[in-house]
């Protein structure tokens, strides 16, 4: 019984000694997770463009009888807009990326916007910025997948 107590105390002590992840490390981890999401969906840019071409062809053929096909033309135009927006949002995300203060893009450049000033950022703020950035790329991913799926469905009708 006594040895068990000692063992538990030792395990507790070890747990206390384990180095806790610093806020900067946490922020970098979130940044890396965002980039992994970006890498996962970036190849879909080709699909967006290919489907845009197919939709344009479909729209043009439907417009040969625009009165009869009015409803479907409206849907196709809507799908075209969503494909273009998804593609644009992906590039916007990349263009507006915010680094974790202290890190850079490998070329020594920092990408931080006015609302993410290094000097004034608390640890909490730095993590919040990265979480918001990750949440935005998750939305872009969902938008891309959704627009591709709904376009394919429309084309295959």
């Amino acid at each position, binding site marked *: 019984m006594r040895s068990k107590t000692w063992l538990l105390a030792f395990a507790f002590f070890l747990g206390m000694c384990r180095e806790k992840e610093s806020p900067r490390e946490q922020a970098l981890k979130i940044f890396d997770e965002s980039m992994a999401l970006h890498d996962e969906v*970036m190849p879909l840019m*080709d699909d967006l463009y290919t489907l845009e071409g197919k939709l344009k062809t479909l729209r043009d053929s439907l417009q040969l009888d625009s009165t009869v096909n009015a409803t479907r033309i409206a849907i196709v135009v809507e799908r075209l807009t969503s494909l273009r927006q998804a593609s644009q949002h992906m590039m916007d995300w990349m263009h507006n*990326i915010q680094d974790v203060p202290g890190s850079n893009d490998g070329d020594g450049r920092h990408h931080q916007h006015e609302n993410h000033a290094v000097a004034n950022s608390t640890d909490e703020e730095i993590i919040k910025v990265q979480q918001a950035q990750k949440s935005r790329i998750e939305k872009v991913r969902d938008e891309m997948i959704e627009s591709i799926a709904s376009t394919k469905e429309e084309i295959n009708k």
Partner: protein
Amino acid sequence: MKLSFLNLLHGCPMLCFALVTTLSSCTSGEKPLPILGERKVVNGDTVYHSIAPFRFTDQDSVSVTSETFQNKIYVADFFFTSCRTICPIMKTQMLRVYEKTKDMPDVLILSHTIDPRHDTVALLRNFASRLGVESKRWHFVTGAKDSIYKIAQTSYFASALEDKDEPGGFIHSGAFLLIDKKGRIRGKYDGTQEPDVDRLMHDIERLRTE
């Protein structure tokens, strides 16, 4: 009379030329590079897939067209300045190609942005100047998004799109394409892999001797 081998060569220059030619082809021992893409036979002649005519604007606001690359060998790729993943690796590898070909006036580099909305001429100029490269040898071009994506898919990656087994995402795949003086694709390389880029640099030299 005893006829030595040297006497024979001295007396017959044509034999000497034939011997040198044969020896040189034996030492290189390499076949010509393949011509990639679709081919058609028109009136008995084979017509190979080639890059469609284009017009873009480079980092100096100068129009860059198919004529710019007439009778030139060039390496083409697709990138965007805010890309943080594969593009920095591609850039390092393309710089190796740039350095390797600095004394080859017939070899150029053409990098297309796939994000023309953000990659303005000014941004491309800044990008090129940070790399310290000459615009007459390495053109960073922008243009209408539709034109860039269209030429990527229908000219540079046409063969890849036809191959259903190849994975998607050609435009952002990190590929370098070797184009010959007739605008034909002679090689496709992974611009993120040093050994593949070594192969590209070797193939440029092979292509120059064709």
